[in-house]
């Protein structure tokens, strides 16, 4: 009997760990866009998860209501989120670029209300589900992993690598990295910081849209879904060291494992509690983030 319980325990536990890994892929993708924006423009978009929601709603609407195939819908969702990101910078942040950083944060808090309100006006508060199921992959006879999660994991891995290559290899990427290091000098060097900020915001928005594509396959859309992904995304970015992509990437997996393991032993809420408490404690141990280089 004891042996039986043991094996039951371990197999479910392995499945939990694997699911945590898959969740980590999504969280890594969600945090990478926010991290990019923070690293370059030095502003925290409190409304980042709401841009993801906007993307999710558009994909849902195009696919479910207008009957457009899922792939073009997703591309439209990514482009539209990119536009939203661009507008966020153009209409809000650019006006506050010299104000106290906390004012920029509060203004994006206003955008959060704005997006939630807009979503409620257009779609109501019902939960909407795409109803897409790709089945699951049987690793062995006891462990099943859902295909949507696996695909999402693969895509987020690819995107994170692509973004890394873009930033480290391309000319524009080099400019973006340079501006994140010293914006005064860069503008003296003749670089148009405004344009680069807009470009970064658009990329950040598009990454949110891509996150939306992956989330819409797994979760119901509703106007307040941003509140369930927003806080965890912020703390992942802070934990990794705001602006530090690699750190954020690793932090995403630490948090996803904490959440799923906590959820395995008790309810999923305790998983979140565990993750947030871990974050607060780590903030005191390493305030610059887990992976910040000592300067």
């Amino acid at each position, binding site marked *: 009997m004891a042996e039986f319980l043991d094996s039951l325990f371990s197999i479910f536990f392995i499945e939990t760990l694997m699911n945590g890994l898959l969740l980590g892929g999504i969280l890594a993708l969600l945090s990478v866009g926010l991290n990019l924006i923070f690293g370059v423009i030095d502003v925290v978009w409190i409304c980042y998860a709401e841009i993801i929601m906007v993307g999710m709603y558009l994909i849902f609407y195009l696919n479910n209501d207008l009957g457009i195939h899922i792939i073009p819908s997703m591309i439209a969702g990514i482009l539209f989120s990119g536009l939203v990101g661009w507008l966020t910078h153009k209409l809000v942040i650019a006006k506050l670029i010299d104000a106290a950083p906390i004012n920029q944060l509060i203004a994006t808090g*206003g955008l959060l*209300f704005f997006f939630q309100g807009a979503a409620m006006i257009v779609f109501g508060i019902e939960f909407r589900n795409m109803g897409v199921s790709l089945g699951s992959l049987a690793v062995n006879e006891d462990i099943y992993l859902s295909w949507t999660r696996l695909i999402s994991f693969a895509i987020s891995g690819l995107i994170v690598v692509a973004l890394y290559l873009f930033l480290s290899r391309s000319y524009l990427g080099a400019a973006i990295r340079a501006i994140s290091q010293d914006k005064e000098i860069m503008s003296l060097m003749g670089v148009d910081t405004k344009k680069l900020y807009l470009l970064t915001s658009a990329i950040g928005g598009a990454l949110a849209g891509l996150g939306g594509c992956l989330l819409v396959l797994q979760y119901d859309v509703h106007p307040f879904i941003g509140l369930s992904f927003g806080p965890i995304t912020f703390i992942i970015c802070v934990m990794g060291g705001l602006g530090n992509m690699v750190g954020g990437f690793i932090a995403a997996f630490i948090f996803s494992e904490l959440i799923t393991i906590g959820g395995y032993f008790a309810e999923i809420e305790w998983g979140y509690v565990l993750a947030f408490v871990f974050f607060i404690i780590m903030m005191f141990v390493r305030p610059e983030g887990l992976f910040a280089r000592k300067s």
Partner: protein
Amino acid sequence: MNNKNFIGFLAVFLCLLPLIGVKGYPLHIVITILIWSFAYTGWSIMGRFGLVSLGHGAFMAMGGYITALLWNYFGMSPWLGIPIALTITGILALIVAYPCFKFRIVGHYFALVTLALSEVVRQVIIATRDYTGGSLGYTPEPHGEGWSIYAIQFPDDRMVFLYIAVFTWLVGIIIWKIIDGSMSRYALEAISEDEDASSAIGVKVTKEKLKITILSAVMTAFAGALYCQYQMFISPDTIGGVGISLQIVFAVVVGGIYSALGPTVGAIITLFLAEILRISIGTATVNLTENLTINAAGFPLFIYGIMLIGFIIFLPKGIVGGLSDFISKKGETSLNAKSSNAK
């Protein structure tokens, strides 16, 4: 206009409301505004020094939930339960804030740490749903029929709560004024400008910040407890979580972060906006297609959002601050330029 006289006059006027026949719904609005004003004032006493906390939803929820839980499970009167709730909230604020200030976590890092705190408290409430009712909310058990001074429950009679709320609100304004005239204000303003320099001239940075944070948390917790006693219903989303934390910031910014009456004006505007929109547009829905409906319930949030952005960009000192600037023609609009303070 003499500010002190004006506030005193306003308090007396509010107390007279029931005697001139105001009751029911209008009185309910007044009480709600006063309770929220107190919470907003609590936030603004630290917010005005650049300590922007997104964790006040956590403090408010703790004030309400601890009081209600002590009453329901241990039969402890709120007369004792509220001080206990405030003490626990104060200790939590200390535990979180002390390392924050010690390790120089400021600006948006501070905002994000406190945001995590909001989420912790909300998730704990939801996770312990067997005791707290989770997201469905929680009701303190009524203590017999009618009034109970022992349980601070006054069902069907808003008058008593009006007096409690007016008194609380007045205390909030007085606390604001005391801080405004104290040495702590100068210390905290110096800290918000430059921590190193103020520490060099002998300001006890961590201690000053801690004092104001704990006071602010306790005030917000008291508002939560009062809200719970008045409404006899609380839920993680009506007095806690990130939503409420942001709502607090929103109201104070709109009303005026550097003015004694700013938070009150913020509470009036947010509540009236919500109520007017609710009554005039209601929750009507117009179906456009199967999934597209014009859902009027979203308009308050939508308009809040636009207003908040507009205020931050064009009027960062809020309505009261902007007005008094306009009257005295000082014309400084930068949130950083902490002008001689709107009186």
